[in-house]
């Protein structure tokens, strides 16, 4: 078996959420690698949008640190305004979006703004960026984050990026257009959402992770899917591709 990092496994799990031909709101870090991996494997016709205004149908010619790096614009099919790209989301043209988060709750609501709520503000985090927009407006949402007790909480203290709010029907009542989260890819497993209650459940465990461990670092009584599977590990080919786009392991902690 090939050695790989947790981040590399997360990239592979992320790539699998992308279907061929989809328009994907990519973002940076692991999601960008997931997008590049998907394009190089099962989703060659997927296209990626970046919030600075860029649409790419082929990978950049050099590894990227930010979406504004010169190689991300060079060779793009469209480099327009941020407003045009964000309105693709609002218009409902984006199939899938990826975001990260500092704190998440049972219904997939994310906090990347104030830990401890706004008034007490124990920690000021960087804020929404485009995360809230993607969570609100993308057709499907995939969340990528570390699985830690302080991050998986019963109720987030501040909703930066809405998941399913208080459960089933909440997005519709709130007037949100996008479909909401379909997967949370963590350092320990992949979690999905009950179609009715919209509560998060554990769908697959990463190789080496145990159910007990996951439950321990999840701040509510976590449900487990009917058939708890093991997340398929990266293949050698997948790792090669990831390492091509993150040659120094900057994002994948190699």
């Amino acid at each position, binding site marked *: 078996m090939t050695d790989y990092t947790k981040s590399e496994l997360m990239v592979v799990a992320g790539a699998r959420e992308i279907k061929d031909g989809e328009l994907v709101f990519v973002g940076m870090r692991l999601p960008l690698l997931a997008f590049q991996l998907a394009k190089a494997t099962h989703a060659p016709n997927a296209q990626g949008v970046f919030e600075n205004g860029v649409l790419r149908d082929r990978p950049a010619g050099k590894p990227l640190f930010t979406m*504004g790096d010169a190689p991300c614009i060079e060779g793009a099919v469209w480099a*327009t305004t941020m407003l045009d790209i964000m309105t693709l989301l609002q218009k409902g043209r984006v199939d899938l979006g990826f975001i990260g988060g500092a704190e998440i709750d049972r219904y997939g609501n994310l906090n990347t703004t104030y830990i401890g709520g706004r008034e007490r503000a124990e920690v000021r985090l960087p804020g929404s*960026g485009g995360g809230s927009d993607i969570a609100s407006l993308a057709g499907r949402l995939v969340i990528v984050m570390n699985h830690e007790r302080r991050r998986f909480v019963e109720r987030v203290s*501040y909703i930066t990026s809405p998941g399913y709010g208080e459960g089933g029907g909440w997005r519709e009542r709130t007037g949100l257009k996008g479909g909401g989260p379909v997967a949370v890819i963590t350092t320990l497993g992949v979690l999905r959402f009950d179609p009715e209650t919209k509560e998060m459940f554990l769908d697959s465990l990463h190789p080496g992770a145990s159910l007990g461990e996951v439950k321990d670092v999840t701040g509510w009584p976590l449900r487990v899917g009917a058939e708890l599977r093991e997340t398929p590990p990266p293949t050698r080919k997948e790792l090669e591709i990831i390492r091509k786009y993150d040659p120094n392991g900057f994002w994948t902690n190699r």
Partner: protein
Amino acid sequence: MGKILSMNQAIERFVNDGDCVALGTALEPLIPFSAGHEIIRQGKRDLTLIGPISDILFDQMVGAGCVSKMVMAWAGNVIMGVGYSLRRAVEKGIPRGIEIEDLTNFSICLALNAGAMGIPFFPTKTLLGTDMFQSNSRIKEMVCPYTGERLALVPALVPDVAIIHAQRADEEGNTHLWGSIGVSKEACLASDRVIVSVEEIVEREVIVSDPNRTLIPGFLVSGVVHEPWGAHPSAVQGYYDRDHEHYMRYHKETRTEKGFARWLDQWILSVQDRSKYIDKIGVGELQRFRVARSHEAMPVEYGY
């Protein structure tokens, strides 16, 4: 002619204490670092900073004590995560407390676009269901008179001054900007004044050879600064790429208040202007970021 100024003059003339200043509107590239550093050196105070993703320039201005408020979607260090000066300011009031109006990337675009368009607000489907309604009292909700659906309303932002860095402009301020555009056009159209710093001042003929490339016309521009490397460590498409290591070092070295003070002195306060900054880094060192693999736009004919 009258619009060509040094950065020192441009900031002195067009940025006042208490102003709302839009900066970093092209996102990660084309950040007007040189202008921001001059604002710090001139000790401007009580600024409101407006920008989507500010990267470390906002963090530096907050740490230097220039800022009383931020209207933003994200602030920190894009590749490293948090900005420590911002955290110290919000969590501990060091060097001073600041107010934050939280928006998202999309809604900050809408706010600047409303300002650009001369309308008081923009209706949108983003922001609904978020706690931005708590931390930004200016967002409202309404029921759509056409569809009955819920809409969030984002009020217009009209900055006193927008500062952008671009590839080239003529002496009147007619500006070509390419690559990552972000929300730069809307910010310039919304603002009362615009300062443009550029890699090159070019003849008018260069600009009018390609009027679709013009980001903003000169009549909206108050001052034009010829400032090569004015966006370093951020990228300028076709001129230089991003100096990622600079951001990594900033992250490492500004973790503490003392570390930040050292950085501020070393890279901003003790550096007279951008040409001295270039000397300090070393022209040779900077050549690493220059274009190594040319890719020119294919010809476009405007004749008749």
